[in-house]
């Protein structure tokens, strides 16, 4: 009898262990927010987009993604606000256009999951998808202007400047595409996949790659201007330009401050976890979230850490700042607002718990 039980128990134990080890992953999303006046528009891990009062954190409206498969209702990219329309790329393979009251204006299915943010310029909405395409839709009637096929997934957000679209792909290339007709102008090859979104500034496109190299590429012809190769892991988050520097977050846990003209390292901030989201400038400081659960605040001038707020959950969303407040999403399904004092000390304003009926909590995080 014992042997019989043992025989039965073994395979069952194995299967239980395999089951505990996890199944096929479901997308969670790490949307950042966009602020307009007193409203924060942000995607949540509940598979919806919410408009929150920036002062109180209370919900003004919510729009649940419409994809048939509920497991795919995630939002990774920061919504794009253009005039009175909010554009949201859903992991459910749909691009949504919403009014600022949360009503659906139109929806357009695309051929793959959308991870990057939509970009709106000159009446065109651009979005990448993991079918390897960059889609260009007319803003008003959602008709397709063109599509551009890359060699792998497009998980980044296109950047647009002077009639040229800059888009990166996991096929290791940065592409320059004509906004008018979608034709390829040039492509720049790196040695690693690119999930980071390109940023254009003053004739130069900045991009980081999985090869651990950060590139500055001449926008005119796609030639390399300089590169920085000291990172210990991939670049994922979108870099930002501020003053004479470009700030590049890396999955090696560091935020690199590079001179945007020479690529020379000015300083780097080391955190205890990968940095997935994009940083934000507030006063004379930079704030960035990390997988170590902390929102880090550093002085721009010399990179010295000023303070940090331990939220004890992975922080992967872009940080958005308005006035003295920063907003971000966290992996524990919360959206948080922190007031950053002029001396750099953070003070939690509110926490919006997206999975609760009464989602707003006020108070201070102990480690802030």
């Amino acid at each position, binding site marked *: 009898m014992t042997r019989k039980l043992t025989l039965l128990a073994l395979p069952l134990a194995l299967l239980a262990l*395999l089951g505990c080890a*996890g199944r*096929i992953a479901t997308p969670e999303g*790490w949307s950042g927010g966009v602020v307009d006046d007193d409203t924060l528009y942000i995607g949540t891990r509940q598979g919806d987009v919410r408009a929150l009062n920036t002062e109180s954190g209370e919900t003004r409206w919510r729009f649940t993604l419409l994809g048939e498969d509920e497991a795919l209702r995630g939002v990774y990219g920061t919504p794009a606000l253009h005039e009175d329309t909010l554009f949201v790329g859903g992991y459910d393979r749909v691009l949504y256009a919403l009014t600022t009251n949360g009503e659906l204006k139109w929806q357009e299915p695309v051929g793959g999951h959308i991870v990057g943010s939509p970009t709106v310029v000159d009446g065109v909405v651009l979005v990448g998808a993991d079918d390897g395409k960059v889609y260009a839709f007319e803003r008003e009637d959602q008709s397709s202007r063109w599509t551009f096929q890359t060699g792998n997934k497009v*998980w980044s957000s296109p950047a647009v400047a002077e009639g040229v679209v800059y888009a990166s792909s996991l096929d290791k290339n940065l592409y320059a595409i004509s906004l008018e007709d979608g034709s390829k102008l040039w492509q720049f090859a790196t040695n690693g996949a690119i999930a980071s979104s390109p940023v254009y500034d003053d004739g130069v496109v900045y991009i980081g790659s999985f090869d651990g190299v950060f590139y500055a590429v001449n926008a005119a012809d796609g030639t390399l201007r300089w590169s920085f190769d000291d990172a210990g*892991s*991939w670049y994922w988050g979108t870099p930002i330009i501020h003053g004479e520097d470009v700030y590049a977050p890396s999955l090696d846990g560091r935020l690199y401050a590079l001179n945007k003209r020479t690529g020379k390292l000015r300083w780097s901030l080391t955190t205890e976890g*990968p940095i997935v989201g994009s940083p934000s400038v507030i006063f004379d400081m930079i704030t960035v979230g990390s997988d170590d659960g902390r929102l880090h605040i550093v002085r721009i001038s010399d990179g010295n850490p000023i303070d940090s707020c331990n939220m004890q959950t992975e922080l*992967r969303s872009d940080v958005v700042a308005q006035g003295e407040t920063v907003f971000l999403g966290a992996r524990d399904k919360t959206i948080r607002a922190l007031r950053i004092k002029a001396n750099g000390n953070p003070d939690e304003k509110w926490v919006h718990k997206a999975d609760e009926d009464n989602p707003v909590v006020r108070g201070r995080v102990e480690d802030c």
Partner: protein
Amino acid sequence: MQIFQILIDIWNLIIIQPMINSLVLLYSIFFLNFGLAIIAFTLVVRAVLIPLTVRQSRQMKMMTDLQPQLKEIQEKYKNDKQQLSRATMEVYKTNGVNPIGCLGPLFIQFPIWIGLFQAVTQTLPSTPERLVGLSKHLYSWLPGVNDVIPINNSFLWLDLAQPDTLPVMPVLVGVSMFLMQKTTTMPSADPRQAQTSKMMLWMMPIMFGFFTTTFPSGLALYWIVSNLVGMIIQGFVTGWGPLIDMLKFKRGEPVPAAAVATATTTALVTSEPEETRSNADGRNNGQNTRRGNRSRAKSTRRRSRRGANRRR
């Protein structure tokens, strides 16, 4: 909570990371084809596990050899369970057999299976979260690993990160497991054990086939290749008898009931070859098991009578 995290870190360090980096390295070697990388990885795993397999096989072989002796004891003490248990343990002790010794290697292989499951799902990230997670596990000193990311999930008709949308992989997993068990048949004199083994022979392939419908097909590919390799190794080590028997069965020849008893769990759960034979004395390797069982039964009867005569 902190201890739990430490255990996870240790697990990742000694199991997950080596597996993930091995898979990625093999992917870069085998023409950026992850299906081939999994097949190569399976062969490597089988090679690494050979010492365990041999130990396990020896234990199984010894257990098989003791079957007639155990049968005698069962007959002798069929009305005294305590005495039966004592005598059985004595036989094990005398012959240097640990009755659960063959399970030791099996338990050691559990982590490999679970690790492989995690390694496949993390190496083939289906979501951005998983891809970020993968970056934490790659060795920065290993040349070229970052250059081949993201891994191409496609192999034949499969997306290796997802379950097979067709019923092909579940069926192949079930069939290969069934065949694997059949080749590792171990006769049992105990009818209860024979019944259990028979049940396992059918239950396990069905269960694994079912779970294949929810697991990444990359893992299913590992199981299939592992089973096939196991069958081949078993064939070379202990002969092709059981397989031939199966073919005969298919041609309409009856298969003895006793031969149905299999070393089911070991064969299935480990997918490792066991040096088990379809006869107790190991002399009719590759021959009809019916004959082997019949002769064993006769010799058992003879010994029994001799013992009775002596007692008289």
